[in-house]
């Protein structure tokens, strides 16, 4: 049984085939096509040819893609939706999407805030106004809207009203309507959670397109026996059905997959991953096998959300970064880059631009292109340039570290040849062999997870009991997502005391994950 992992990025479409022992059998790096399916087809065809295996032997196929991020950022292919918030008389001071850009706001055909919502302790602010909800859904139905975003005050504490509203929605609008409820999408903070839910509702067409397209390209290549999955932004997988329901969860899967893939290739569970591309280098942290989450609110296309996103910093350094000598003798590298045109424009490939790759070739760090073409570069200049590169990487490494101890560093990405082996602050620096396709590998080896979050007053439920309950709930959720029960581990437990709440209230968050089972 083989696993096929595919990552469709902005520039490259990468694919890997791995066996049951998670060993890489074949891999390919190719360009992403305008119509992503051609790129996927080409990548799949190539790994099948290279490996020579029978397509019917592929048991699982995973896709990581930036389609959703691009759709939001470029404002393309977003569906018209209805936005309903349950919370009046609270929240009326902040209408939904109040700070959204005009060119994105228009996706909402109808917006309404109706009575409903909960207090922090689960008491109702107001009973759900079912009449107002029905009237809202009727208006949407008349307009032919097929997707609805429903949010509710403190739905992270209690989501009965959201469930009820979703039920009414289907009664009025039919079973085919897409309903996104905020308690299933975001965490604490109404506006960010509501924003994420609205974006999710608007992405349903994009999700339909890439899930259908992916399924079709697999079928075309004879991969008919595979369970098909999509990458989420937390390093775990979801089924096609789940992805069609929660497309917003694919948002940051690119960096997540590359971080996990790097961790897997180097067999390390705790390290800093440095992914050097053509133009940028992304640094992330792998903690107990999973990407460290960002603490700050993440904006997507200018819209503020509270997603689980990997904590990644990007710097303007890549294989194609342009190297310059300044009058005062210093040498700069980037932030501009020749990008994917490197094979035409870099000196070592016969071009005219001195890039970071050329510096690496000149100093004998790698054998790309024709070394003779960079021989004329002054050695002093090249060393200074490498010094600049080293300092840039060391600085950002330092910013990502979790303690003052030396960190283990994993270097991946097509541009990793420009980074020297001795980095200050790094205990070990590993450049795994398949590092160029770390992201596709990350997709292929992903686990499935369940995340449970709840506010608990420890005066009413003792901490031991509360955490035990939460762990059981998280494991159940992981199981529902497809995890093999025996492999489920609790990978994160957090309880944060909340200062202003009465009693001893804490926010309890537990994440469980397990290996993906065969359906």
């Amino acid at each position, binding site marked *: 049984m083989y696993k096929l992992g595919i990552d469709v990025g902005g520039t490259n479409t990468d694919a890997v085939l791995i066996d049951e022992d998670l060993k890489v059998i074949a891999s390919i790096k190719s360009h992403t096509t305008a119509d992503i399916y051609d790129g996927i087809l080409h990548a799949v065809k190539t790994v099948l040819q290279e490996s020579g295996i029978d397509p019917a032997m592929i048991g699982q196929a995973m896709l990581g893609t930036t389609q959703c991020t691009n759709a939001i950022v470029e404002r393309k292919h977003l569906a018209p939706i209805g936005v309903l918030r349950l919370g009046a008389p609270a929240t009326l*001071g902040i209408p939904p999407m109040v700070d959204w850009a005009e060119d994105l706001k228009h996706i909402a055909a109808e917006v309404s805030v109706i009575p409903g919502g909960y207090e922090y302790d689960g008491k109702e602010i107001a009973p759900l106004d079912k009449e107002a909800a029905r009237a809202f859904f009727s208006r949407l139905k008349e307009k032919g809207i097929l997707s609805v975003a429903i949010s509710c005050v403190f739905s992270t504490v209690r989501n009965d009203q959201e469930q009820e509203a979703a039920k009414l929605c289907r009664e009025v609008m039919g079973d085919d309507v897409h309903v996104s409820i905020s308690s299933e999408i975001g965490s604490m903070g109404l*506006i960010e959670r509501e924003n994420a839910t609205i974006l999710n509702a608007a992405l349903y067409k994009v999700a339909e397109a890439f899930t259908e397209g992916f399924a079709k390209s697999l079928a075309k290549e004879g991969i008919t026996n595979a369970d098909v999955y999509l990458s989420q932004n937390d390093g775990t997988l979801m089924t096609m059905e789940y992805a069609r329901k929660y497309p917003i969860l694919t948002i940051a899967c690119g960096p997540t997959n590359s971080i996990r893939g790097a961790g897997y290739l180097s067999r390390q569970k705790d390290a800093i991953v440095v992914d050097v591309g053509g133009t940028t280098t992304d640094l992330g942290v792998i903690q107990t096998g999973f990407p460290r989450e960002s603490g700050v609110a993440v904006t997507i296309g200018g819209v503020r959300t509270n997603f689980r996103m990997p904590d990644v910093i990007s710097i303007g350094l890549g294989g194609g970064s342009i190297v310059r000598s300044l009058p005062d003798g210093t040498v700069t590298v980037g932030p501009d880059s020749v990008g994917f045109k490197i094979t035409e424009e870099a000196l070592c490939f016969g071009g005219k631009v001195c890039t970071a790759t050329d510096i690496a070739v000149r100093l004998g760090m790698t054998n790309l292109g024709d070394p003779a073409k960079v021989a004329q570069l002054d050695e002093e200049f090249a060393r200074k340039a490498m010094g600049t590169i080293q300092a840039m990487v060391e600085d950002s490494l330092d910013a990502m570290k979790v303690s003052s101890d030396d960190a283990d560093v994993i270097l991946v990405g097509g541009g990793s040849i420009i980074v020297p082996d001795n980095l200050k602050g790094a205990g070990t620096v590993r450049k795994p062999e398949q590092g160029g396709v770390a992201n596709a590998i990350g997709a292929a080896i992903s686990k499935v997870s369940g995340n449970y979050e709840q506010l608990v007053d420890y005066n009413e439920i003792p901490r031991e009991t509360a955490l035990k309950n939460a762990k059981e709930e998280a494991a159940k959720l992981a199981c529902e997502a497809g995890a093999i029960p025996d492999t489920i581990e609790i990978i994160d437990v957090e309880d944060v005391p909340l200062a202003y709440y009465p009693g001893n209230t804490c926010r309890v968050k537990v994440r469980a994950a397990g290996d993906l089972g065969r359906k």
Partner: protein
Amino acid sequence: MRKIGISEIEDIALGASLLGAGGGGDPYVGKLVAIGAVRECGDVTLLDPEEVPDDALVVPIAMMGAPTILAEKAVGEGEYKALYDIVSSFFGKPIYAFMPIEAGGVNSMLPIAAAARLGLPLVDVDGMGRAFPELQMVTFTIGGGCSTPMALVDEKGNSCIFRTVSNKWTEELARSVTMSCGGSVSVSLYPMEGAFMKQYGVKGIVTRSQQLGSAIRMVKECTDSSPEEKFLEITEGFRLFKGKISDVKREVRGAFNFGKVILDGIGDYKGKSAYVEFQNENLSAVIDDEILATVPDLICVVDSETFTPIPTDALKYGKRVMVVGLKCFPLWRTREGIELVGPRYFGIDTDYIPLEKRCKGGNANV
């Protein structure tokens, strides 16, 4: 007198997070409340304190309760109208204008919303010139002012007005009612006459917040000096330290976030060590065992690259930061001021010495 609209609100919010000196809460939700109100009701008139008649009724507006609850419930539509009604009726005269009670954080934004919704002006003044954790820590206390009559309203339409015998009782009763109402309410406090406001208020603070915010936003675009020098120039700040956060210790006691952040020096400060103690807001900055700044002067921790202010609850290992000192409002440096908000009140074993005097040792940028 001038108008405040959405772009001014953005700058005021950013400047307010600097003046928050580590506290004040994340102004994002407050900012949205202000934007929501201005979009619906129009821009707000900002008055210079001198433009306010001596006998006018001026009322500070704030929120009370848990910021995380505010982040779920925001505010309703009619809260500021309810406050207006209950307060005006109590005094038997209309409210002339609203004002912020504290310049730092969320409470810088809500009075703008109140002004927009009621069509009343906002006065360019507050009671702290920064953020402070406790109710009585306002300049008006020095002038003999009282936090009550304090009005409190919730989004459901409940309202009440307190008269109490001491600030301690005000805290006690108001918190109790706040929790019963759901944990986040709008309040008015320290209602005063124009003359009193002019005598004890921190004048021009809204404008200063706006300037600071706009400076932080544009600091990268300057050409005549480095962004860091420009930032210090515009904020009139003293660079106390630059370092990487190596540890953050936290403890929740009562309703406050106590703690200490430890920094390892970077750049010119390499080899040195510093720490900042906080109780919601930053209280002291100590470098290599030498105290360089204490309350009531403002101690601000900002990102070393973008100069974005970092509230105490966002401090975490590895962040590169600059610690900047800003002089406090002069009234805080009087004997009465030091009694209320000096270092000894917060348990720091030192007398207050003005920031600029402490920094003469050459560690700071003047």
